[in-house]
């Protein structure tokens, strides 16, 4: 898995509402971006002078070829606010693809993709690749957010034939409640059917903590795509430590992750 650091140009920004937007980038020369696996990410920074010093991490949402790829972001703080103003033609510095992604689907085992809000991209790419491999039902998307505006790119999933269950906390679309409730229901069904499943989750940390508990309690293989504050994204600053069980107390979100087996993460 080779990464590179390269200049890219914004090709388009598609605003999705609710602060979400898709940024399409084109690298100035061919890169390894098309080797990205779902969960791998890029570090992105614009021509931002001396403030907003560090790049921001974004999961790879999709790629067309060795130059064209896109990310899905939500306006959160100053960096994403700045990115949300990017115009076609703006230059960006990019490093990636970085990290280790989710395991690929295995024969005879359904992957339950649990996405919360802006945690969608890795799972969206996982679903895309399953569909492209002619096995859209090798994965099932359980997708939750606060409200209707937090569920974006649903059309894509529907178009691919990805089995899909939605939940919103305000009930504005799908089931009312959290995506973890969908997961518990789905696991109960799997248990009843004797179906082999595994869990792939990405979303806000409290959601991941809940998914982890559910997965561990159910004895189901569970993989979490974590977010930690990152400065470099390639294993140098040691800022993105993830507390783990094992021979050492920390591993690194950017190089060992961002995807970690649930049982490895040292959380309550």
């Amino acid at each position: 898995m080779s990464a590179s650091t390269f200049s890219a140009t914004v090709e388009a920004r598609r605003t999705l509402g609710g602060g979400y937007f898709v940024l399409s980038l084109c690298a100035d020369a061919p890169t390894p971006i098309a080797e990205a696996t779902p969960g791998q990410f890029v570090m992105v920074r614009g021509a931002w002078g001396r403030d907003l010093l560090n790049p921001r991490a974004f999961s790879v949402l999709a790629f067309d070829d060795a130059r064209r790829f896109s990310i899905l972001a939500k306006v959160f703080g100053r960096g994403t606010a700045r990115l949300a103003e990017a115009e076609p033609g703006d230059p960006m510095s990019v490093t990636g693809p970085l990290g280790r992604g989710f395991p690929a689907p295995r024969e005879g085992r359904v992957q339950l993709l649990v996405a919360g809000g802006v945690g969608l991209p890795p799972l969206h790419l996982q679903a895309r690749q399953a569909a492209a491999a002619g096995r859209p039902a090798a994965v099932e998307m359980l997708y939750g957010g606060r409200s209707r505006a937090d569920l974006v790119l649903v059309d894509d999933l529907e178009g691919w034939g990805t089995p899909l269950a939605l939940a919103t906390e305000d009930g504005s679309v799908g089931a009312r409640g959290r995506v973890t409730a969908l997961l518990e229901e789905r696991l109960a069904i799997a248990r009843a059917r004797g179906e082999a499943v595994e869990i792939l989750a990405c979303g806000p940390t409290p959601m991941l903590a809940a998914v982890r508990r559910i997965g561990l309690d159910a004895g189901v293989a569970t993989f979490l795509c974590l977010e930690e504050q990152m400065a470099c994204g390639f294993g140098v600053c040691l800022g993105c430590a993830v507390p783990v069980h094992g021979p050492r107390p920390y591993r690194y979100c950017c190089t060992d992750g961002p995807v970690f087996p649930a049982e490895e993460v040292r959380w309550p």
Partner: protein
Amino acid sequence: MSAPPPAHAPLAPEAVDLRTRFAGLELQTPLLAASGCFAYGQQFAAFTDLRRLGGLVTKGISPAPRYGNPVPRICETAAGMLNSIGLENVGVDAFLADKLPFLRDLGVSVWVNFFGTDFPTYVECAERLSAGAGAGIDVLEMNISCPNIKHGGIEFGTVPEVAHRLTKACVEASSIPIVVKLSPNAGDIVGMAQAVKEAGAAGVSLINTITGMAIDVRRRRPRIATTYGGLSGPAIKPIALRMVHQVARALPDLPICGIGGVMSGEDALEFLMAGATTVQVGTALFAEPGAIVRITEELRALMGELGIADVVAAVGVLEAIPPEVPYVPA
């Protein structure tokens, strides 16, 4: 009113000589990667040509491996960042066995940053690095300034007498030149530099991070698990330049390696003109792994534009602003 700048005929970038010497060592450029922002270098090989660096400084090495601080360890601030990594490192043995060979083979100046948690472990670390190193290490950069470890760090870095004793002991234990990296948290930076110089330091690195804090008001918590972290990046550059200039003026024959917020060739030249002989680049490497190569070329072009043929000639060339016409009260 200020007079026009002194005229110097511009030069082609190729005519600019970036080779320099620091404490008796030869470097192909004055630009080094800073400790803690370069790890042990391997990660950079995919992104940049490491043989084009002037040198590199490793992550701080302690006698035993260390696992570092709880998370969150970093956050961003205005034109800067805070970190509290906790001096995580692989320890002397693993460093010498697994990390040094790669660095040695790059053919650039290799500086090993080190520290202990108390007096004896500092000396032990200097001794073992120096003994085990063969010809592979050019400089031991002694970190007496990291604010992130509870024992050691901060006191060594702010009390001149303590720094003097510690430096002396390490210099005696080491066959490799020792450059002491000073803490900007010290009230009297010149006093600190003087103390370590008299103890036999071959030079000083200025500056390490400045202790700072940031608060997440929504969670009512510090943004860094250890509450305080070290501030780096362009925000601290004016403070770093001032300290370099103060030390250079007070101790003209002590070689200085300038550090703090360097992101461009112009930043590097500011440090050289303030009196630093070499310059380290830290935080800038996170956003741009190839930053040093770019900065090197920017420095070369800028020196050419300003007609400075030789990087050694740029060191400390600062002139005072010409005095105003005296005021005669009416």
